[in-house]
């Protein structure tokens, strides 16, 4: 019995290693691609591994950036600020909403729930122009609010969180209430810690959307100094799409845009796994 089990484990680990290796190919590709010298970038069929790694691509990218009117660091600062604020805002606002939707009874609850499901289906690209009209109506062009507010009320985040929050046993909340906890204490001491895996998931998803978002920069920001790194990289790439030198910068910029995602992922992934191990629910 014992031997068969470990044989099963062995098969499992082997097949997972194979699959995992397959899944991580694109990372390998992005990282290697950024360090390829010019002649290797255009090889066909494309090679995964770089033969003569070089930092020339990054040099070119920074040289190009330093010639622009707005310094590279300004875009970076904008992106980091917007991402950090949006992350904090989305987590707070959507956990609160999910807590209310998952654990309270009030008017229009069913209606709001169906609205969330409906609005999930609407691709943000299609409502760009009405959004622009609202933003400029509120006078938020060229402010950080213009970056933040459209992202704050995320239906996806609430949608994912409701499932987790409603899994929290009612007895736990009742016990806290009997012990004299206020709604805010219940929210901050019980609901937030217990839905941590879901919060970590939406953090990763939110960061990804904010970091890669070019819509707010294109539509709501007219001043170059208020635009984000994603917009800069995108305009750089579309301007250089057909030129040979552009491919170098594109490869380096691809890695630069990808790395923060990876870092955020690694930070929160650890949290996700930790909470799964220690989760005291049930």
């Amino acid at each position, binding site marked *: 019995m014992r031997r068969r089990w470990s044989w099963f484990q062995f098969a499992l680990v082997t097949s997972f290693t194979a699959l995992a290796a397959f899944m991580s190919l694109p990372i390998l590709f992005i990282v290697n691609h950024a360090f390829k010298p010019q002649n290797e970038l255009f090889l066909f069929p494309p090679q995964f591994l770089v033969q003569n790694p070089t930092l020339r691509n990054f040099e070119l990218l920074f040289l190009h950036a330093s010639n622009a009117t707005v310094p590279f660091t300004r875009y970076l600062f904008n992106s980091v600020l917007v991402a950090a604020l949006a992350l904090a805002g989305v987590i707070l606002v959507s956990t*609160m909403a999910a807590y209310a939707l998952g654990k309270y009874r009030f008017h229009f609850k069913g209606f709001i729930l169906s609205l969330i499901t409906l609005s999930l289906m609407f691709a943000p690209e299609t*409502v760009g122009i009405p959004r622009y009209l609202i933003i400029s109506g509120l006078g938020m062009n060229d402010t950080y609010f213009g970056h933040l507010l459209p992202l704050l009320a995320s239906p996806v985040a609430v949608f994912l969180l409701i499932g987790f929050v409603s899994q929290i046993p009612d007895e736990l909340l009742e016990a806290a209430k009997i012990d004299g906890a206020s709604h805010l204490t219940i929210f901050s001491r019980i609901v937030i810690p217990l839905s941590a895996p879901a919060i970590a998931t939406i953090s990763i998803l939110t960061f990804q959307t904010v970091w*890669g978002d070019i819509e707010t920069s294109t539509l709501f920001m007219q001043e170059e100094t208020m635009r984000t790194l994603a917009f800069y990289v995108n305009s750089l790439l579309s301007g250089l799409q057909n030129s040979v030198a552009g491919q170098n910068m594109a490869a380096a910029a691809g890695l630069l845009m990808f790395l923060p995602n990876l870092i955020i992922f690694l930070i929160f992934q650890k949290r996700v796994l930790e909470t799964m191990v220690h989760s005291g629910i049930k």
Partner: protein
Amino acid sequence: MDAKQKKRAELRYHGSRYGTGLLFMLPWLIGFCSFVLVPVGWSLFMSFNKVQVSVGGFKYDYIGLENFRDAFLKDNEFPVQLITYFQQMLLMVPIIVLFALFISLMLNQRFPGRFLYRALFFLPVIFATGQVLSELFTQEVGEIPFIDQYNLEPLVAEYVGQQFAEPVMSVLGNAVLILWYSGVQILIFVAGFQTISPTIYEAVRIDGATPWDSFWKITLPATVPFISLNILYTIIDLFTFPLNPVIAHIRENMFKVDTGYGYASALAWIYFAFIFVLIAIVLGLFGRNMKKRRARS
């Protein structure tokens, strides 16, 4: 406890009935109304109008359903794109969800280093960012070489018929993409399995159930809500996918002078109607299933 405190406690009790719920909802609700609900409603209004940019704002001319008629009768790209993408979707959603279910079941087993693997399978989620994805697409690393090598296309066409061959081929071609797309779904499943108490498994094992039985009788019923969550998530994810040809077509029309934003809105609403029907079917199927379960327990 004096009278004042008592009154406050009383108020708090009544407030908790629905006031607090709404209060917690408020920030989200305001944001949702102003940046999702109003724009969506606005675009519905625009879809019935011919919208032209003029000096000092937009000019609306009410033209009724003409935009919608044009979408099917005049536009020679949109209906084809819509139907092809829809077929592709119907194939990809079950594949992605089943793949995620299978992988997460395996990841739920005990074996050394499973945390590392869980992390690895979630990793692809971060590729979903437009920039990286389009880079990979143009390099065509998402495709599997053996399709061209063994000339699979006529074979597929023979088995499933000519009209379905194209979506099947593109699903095969994007097999790697499917693997990458199942990250969030795997995570949701793995988290979902954690909500099943280990004592239940122990109890049925003592009663003599095989692992096979306990999967069908315990794991699967308990996972049904997560399966429906995952199906919805996958549909939505694929429909709002940045490289999706239909969305690209809508965006293209948005900034064309002769068709304008009104027409683009009409296209978006047709697209939306299709997804809505699909999601309504999924919700209907799973909703009934869940209600049955709730009634039993």
